[in-house]
């Protein structure tokens, strides 16, 4: 699927956010500036979170408790060479909220068995365009993607 503006990327994230349930894990992949945090802003909106979604790069994890469900926004960018064992990640993955992980490739061994991977890729010609691909692992996430696509095209 393709979005042509940041607003459209946020809108797609919002549709996803409105369908999410506690325990859901979303992995966001893409280069620096691909729109991972922008997409997360949409997910937060879909969860009814009104606070600004700020980059979690520095603190690694930012928590938002004021939506329908808690949102845990993680950025593993700094863990390129390992070092995630100290973060207690399994408590988040088995917790009461929704976990969105950027740069999850650096915590492969800590990830749960099932999740939804979303790849964001910039268009080579147009800086505003994004190619967005959903890859669900497990039947729960396959169903989720179908619901999201149906709701998005319905809008």
């Amino acid at each position: 699927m393709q979005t042509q503006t940041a607003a459209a990327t946020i809108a797609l994230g919002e549709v996803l956010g409105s369908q999410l349930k506690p325990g859901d894990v979303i992995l966001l992949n893409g280069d620096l500036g691909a729109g991972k945090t922008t997409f997360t802003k949409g997910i937060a909106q879909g969860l009814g979170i009104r606070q600004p979604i700020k980059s979690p790069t520095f603190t690694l994890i930012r928590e938002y408790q004021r939506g329908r469900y808690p949102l845990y926004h993680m950025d593993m960018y700094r863990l390129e060479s390992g070092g995630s064992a100290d973060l207690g990640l399994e408590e988040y993955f088995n917790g009461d909220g929704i976990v969105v992980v950027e740069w999850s490739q650096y915590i492969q061994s800590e990830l749960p068995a099932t999740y939804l991977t979303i790849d964001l890729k910039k268009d080579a010609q147009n800086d505003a365009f994004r190619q967005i691909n959903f890859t669900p692992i497990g039947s729960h996430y396959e169903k989720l993607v179908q619901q999201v696509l149906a709701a998005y095209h319905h809008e």
Partner: protein
Amino acid sequence: MKATNELILAIESSCDETSVAVVRDGQTILSNIIATQINSHKRFGGVVPEVASRHHVEAILVAAQDALDEAQVTYDDLQAVAVTVGPGLVGALLIGISAAKAISFAHSLPLIPVNHMAGHIYAARLVHELTYPLMALLVSGGHTELVYLRAPGEFEIIGDTRDDAAGEAYDKIGRVLGVPYPAGKTIDAMAHEGKDTFDFPRAMLQEDNLDFSFSGLKSAFINTVHHAEQKQEALLKNDLAASFQASVIDVLVGKTIKALQQYPVKQLVVAGGVAANQGLREQLAAHLAAAGLDQVEVIFPPLRLCGDNGAMIGAAAHVALQKHEPFADLTLNADPSLSFDYAETMLS
């Protein structure tokens, strides 16, 4: 308690420095031991939690003893022990907190919890007398905030970044330019050798609020470099650095001036790691004068107090002690997401 000879032992371990200081009356540094981990983290391009925690464990007791020795005092001479409780990395914070609790318990000293960002602001207290109301611009790797202090210890966020912190933007574009972490100092130096030729966006400068945004600048920077690579054009790195820095500083300075116009104060404290930036120091002075705000006294804590250190925590703890804020007990926990309160105007 004699107000003239209050000694606080202050511990800071929120990120990549383990630091313990002895501070007298919140303004005189008797010692300020800083064990840095920068070299361990450089190869990771940032602070790594596990590595940070391990270093703190190794360094903290030595740093505490060194701080007492250098100040030529013992635990019996202290009035309180203070410690950073957040924001920061949870594992790193907990090591400072555990050490502070142990000292508090063993020597029957009151335990003062300190917000790390209050520490950055009150680093100014160690070099300058402060008058209120006071404005602070906090710029670091994790924060870009305008904070208004009606009175000592009363912090109110009136402007904040909507996405990336200014220091984070430096580190991220530094990676694109191939500049080692932390990138701020190198990019500042490169910027002084280059010219603002790329005209990157100045996000939110025309908007009426006091908020910042640096994510769009980061994207514009990456796009520019990317397109040049596709066309196999070579861009002048110093000009890229100068253009990037000009955008960051224009926004920081522009919003700070707007804040000073809306909230009249006598002093502005500029704190956090990015306060060390020479370009920011030069431009802020020039623009304040141009805006007719030259009566506002700008205080930059000296470079050695801009980074994380225990003395600034001691200075902030003194203010808390003077205000009779409640002490912590041995249940004290880390608060990695600790923040000042937002002004009413920002919650609408």
